[in-house]
């Protein structure tokens, strides 16, 4: 059995430290070299020359969350698939190929069921989920879009 030394993790720590050092070094140089003349106009957020109105921190559309949700499920599934993929070729050489293939396919099959469900329900559809939320105010536009979709389909 192979053993690993914990020292192998040292470069990661050193690299992260290097990033921090570079960051603060750059800042330091910037503080020394750069001028500092703030004006009230300069310190506002950029809105193409207009006065900035309100805060940008407002509620966003839910579709961003749905994308994140599908992502995290896939992420976790791929995490579980990595160790199985690592032993795959070994198992094939030992003659358990069909067994592990079946197992793998069942796992992926369940994953694919999920994405097919989301596809059918339109969660992968950036525009349609937008129309559903906009229908409250403008029914005509949504109906028109639906007709266009039907016609194209």
């Amino acid at each position, binding site marked *: 059995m192979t053993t690993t030394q914990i020292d192998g993790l040292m470069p990661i720590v050193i690299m992260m430290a290097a990033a921090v050092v570079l960051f603060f070094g750059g800042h330091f140089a910037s503080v020394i070299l750069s001028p500092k003349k703030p004006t009230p106009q300069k310190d506002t957020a950029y809105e193409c020359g207009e006065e900035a109105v309100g805060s940008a921190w407002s509620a966003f559309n839910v579709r961003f969350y749905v994308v994140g949700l599908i992502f*995290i499920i896939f992420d976790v599934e791929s995490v579980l698939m990595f160790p199985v993929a690592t032993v795959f070729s070994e198992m094939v050489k030992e003659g358990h190929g069909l067994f592990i293939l079946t197992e793998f396919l069942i796992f992926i099959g369940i994953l694919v069921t999920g994405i097919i469900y989301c596809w059918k329900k339109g969660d992968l559809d950036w525009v349609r989920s937008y129309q559903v939320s906009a229908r409250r105010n403008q029914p005509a536009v949504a109906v028109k879009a639906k007709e266009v979709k039907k016609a194209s389909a």
Partner: protein
Amino acid sequence: MISLASYLIISMILFVIGLMVMIARKNIVAILLGIELVLNAAALNFVAYSKFVTNNLDGHIFALFIIVVAAAEAAVGLAIVIRFFQLKETIHVDEATQLRN
């Protein structure tokens, strides 16, 4: 020298802080943060015990599944939070009183 006790102490601190976050804060997202801390404390315990006591990898498997369950829990929990916000326009936990009586 690092021993099992050091990991257990860290795990305990994390667990207690997670519990305090869950109790003290009224923001539902913050409560979910507390739950993540608690679950991680448990997973840390599993890995520490599997290293120092049992000497096999079942603890690692358990930690893996804890992470999986935590991710699923966060996904569903945050979906509920968003839906709650759509209904109530707030995520203050004391507003969730529809099932009280």
